[in-house]
């Protein structure tokens, strides 16, 4: 022991990342790629220039941190939300629609006022849409007993298909040529840091991370959430906690955060809705949350890490001809390393307890 817990979780995260990159290098070599070239293209794409950091990595970190926070919230409350991808899309659709509509109303209000009214409404719509998307699995679980794993998973595909319909139907751009929405008016856009693609969503994500951390650490409601996730029976019997309610609220909150991520992406980065808006943020978010051991503050760090990884992956595809989705191998390896470490820790703890009984 000796090392403090935050330091230890950082070290184990670095180790997991290292193992992930080694596995990627091996996989690439075996599939016939030049692994060295691929990894250096990746490093350059992630850290090579201020532009890489401020326009590629940081903007990507925003949805990853938000979704990671959401998945952490759900997992801590015992809800296995595998559906952040669908919730993200629900948020993105709602944000686009409200942005286009309200942005239209506020023309002529003056730039500042229009933005002060429109942007919050856009983000609020995204939050509500994400929560509503998550409400379906909540109802299915609490009323009908359908595992949230299966329902959230299936709703991802519904979300994707819905976006596909929207951008070729109701929300298609005015010329009806391209499968995407019109660009959002400036009033509906989150302010960007001049000269970069970094937007205000990062501040929002950081504040939410701190708030969620304080919630879990210092509030009774946050404690009820952790207790429900750790042992729902004891939480209900000894803690007299309404665990069904906690489960439902955790999943709704999780959906709201993923929806917010979708809204922030449209309002801050792409300014339009289109298919494949998310390069799998919902699944990467699982790795982000797990690597952070569901700790909201650590999620900031792991979100940045995965953003660097994915930004690097795009560079890798561009410069070394390796498909970007190969980074999924790194993400999967990291998840597995974290799981194995957890399983091992549990076994050691059980053995220690068994020896004394």
């Amino acid at each position: 022991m000796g090392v403090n817990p935050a330091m230890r979780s950082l070290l184990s995260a670095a180790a997991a990342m290292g193992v992930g990159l080694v596995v990627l290098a091996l996989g690439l070599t075996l599939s016939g790629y030049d692994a060295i070239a691929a990894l250096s293209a990746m490093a350059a794409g992630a850290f090579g220039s201020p532009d890489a950091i401020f326009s590629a990595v940081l903007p990507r970190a925003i949805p990853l941190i938000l979704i990671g926070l959401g998945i952490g919230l759900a997992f801590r409350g015992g809800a296995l939300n595998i559906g952040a991808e669908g919730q993200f899309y629900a948020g993105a659709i709602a944000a686009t629609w409200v942005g286009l509509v309200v942005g239209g109303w506020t023309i002529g209000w003056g730039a500042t006022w229009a933005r002060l009214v429109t942007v919050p409404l856009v983000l609020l719509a995204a939050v509500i849409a994400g929560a509503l998307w998550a409400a379906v699995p909540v109802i299915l679980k609490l009323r009908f007993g359908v595992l949230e794993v299966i329902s959230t998973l299936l709703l991802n595909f519904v979300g994707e298909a819905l976006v596909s319909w929207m951008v070729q139907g109701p929300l298609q751009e005015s010329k009806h040529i391209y499968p995407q929405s019109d660009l959002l008016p400036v009033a509906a856009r989150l302010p960007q840091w001049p000269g970069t693609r970094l937007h205000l969503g990062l501040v929002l994500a950081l504040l939410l991370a701190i708030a969620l951390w304080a919630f879990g650490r210092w509030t009774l409601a946050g404690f009820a959430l952790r207790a429900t996730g750790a042992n729902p029976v004891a939480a209900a019997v000894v803690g007299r906690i309404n665990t069904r309610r906690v489960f439902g609220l955790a999943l709704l909150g999780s959906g709201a955060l993923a929806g917010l991520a979708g809204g922030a992406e449209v309002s801050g980065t792409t300014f339009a809705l289109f298919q494949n808006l998310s390069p799998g943020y919902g699944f990467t978010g699982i790795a982000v949350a797990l690597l952070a051991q569901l700790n909201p503050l650590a999620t900031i760090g792991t979100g940045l890490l995965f953003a660097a990884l994915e930004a690097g992956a795009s560079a890798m595809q561009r410069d070394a001809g390796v498909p970007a989705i190969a980074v999924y191998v790194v993400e999967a390896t990291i998840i597995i390393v974290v799981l194995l470490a957890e399983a091992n820790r549990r076994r050691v703890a059980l053995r220690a307890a068994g020896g004394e009984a």
Partner: protein
Amino acid sequence: MPSLLTLRNISKQYGSVVALRDVNFDLGAGEIHALLGENGAGKSTLMNVAFGLVRPDSGSIVIDGHQQQLRSPVEARRAGIGMVHQHFTSIPAFSVWENVALTAGWSISRPRVAEERVRALAQRIGFDLDPRSRAGDLSAGLKQRLEVLKAIAADARILLLDEPSSALSPADAEQFLSQLRSFKTMGIASVLITHKFSEALGIADTVTVLRRGEVVHNGPISTTNATELARHILGEVPPDRLRLAAAVPGDVRVRVESLTVLRQGSSGPGLRTATMLARAGEVVGIAAVEGNGQRELLRAIAGMAEAKSGRIDVATPVVLIPEDRTSEALIGDFSLAENLVLSQGGAAPWVRGPWIRWRQAHDRTAQLIESFGVRAAGSEMPARGLSGGNQQRMVIAAALERRPAVLVAENPTRGLDFKATAEIHDRLRAAAGAGVAVIVHLADLDELMSVADRIVVLAAGIATEMPTGASRDAIGRQMLTGGG
């Protein structure tokens, strides 16, 4: 009598605790051998050695004259040993015949044949088991018999029975034990692990008594008697455990009238009708065989189960000590302080508005660890790191910390050693002495009679209050026949 199973010079140590020291044990063919001792005396460890579940540090096992290395229950089974555990080990969703086929490794390509085989076997040993019943739906008594049937179907010639009567009503236990005796004619020898010497005297041929891991007595049952056995088991003459004077009753804290509660667990009729009172300052004992409605009654009083009909008035706060420490009473991964915070809820002094003041919670936990004699490294220690007895001390400390008007305890001494059990009894009596209305169910009737001021018997979901001064026999009879 030729020896079927011989355990020679068996020793086993866990850390610094000696579980078995140089133990010798002989089981003759066709014999029923009682293995007596208090909880923690080493009975179960010894039988686990014989069943390949525990590897001894030294000593040897001889079966039918051949020395054997039993590395697993599979090897023990192959050597003709069958074990009937205290807990149910059948697959609840499987039928009786499927459970038997699974254990015995039968072919099931023709289910009818397997079914008939089970029916014939059950008939031969006098068990009234329908091969097609779902194992999970069987009564406690039939579950016990299914465990035995499985062992015999797997060609066991040696049965190790771990406290087989603990979940049975007294009369059913008697019937079950007499069925054991009939196995002798089939050449099956049995080891009966028990802490009740009356059972041993009634049925066994030979008796071995263990105390603190050592054999303190061995010989034919005919040359001994209850007093002598009790002295061997406890090391001294047992105290008179009967309560003579009832407590002075205070105000009524629990009033239950014609209460009906639907089944909560997987078996039993639920609570069909119960009418009872509990007053401040008394301990009301609930006597019942597993699955006769006690869980439903206690949970309803504790506000954890809904009444289907009838009336129930309970003073608040009412606090429940649930039966399963590790899954219901504590969160193993949480620290002792977190577990205390969990149990105290929103009214605790460390809760201010939405916030928790952890420093205050840790300080209080440390005080409770001290005053309840919990052996723990500190308030930061995870609950799963504690021994069973220390976990239960912590659970009771947390329960009393809520200053309950009513304390409901479900079998709070389950699996605890003699010392911890006695301590839990004292805590319950002390709580009553301080004006709490205590309602407790204990699986062991003798234990219950030593703790309770009054006893309410539940049989088949129907409650009957026993008159003061009722004898153990009367209560036992009521547990089986009562209700109607």
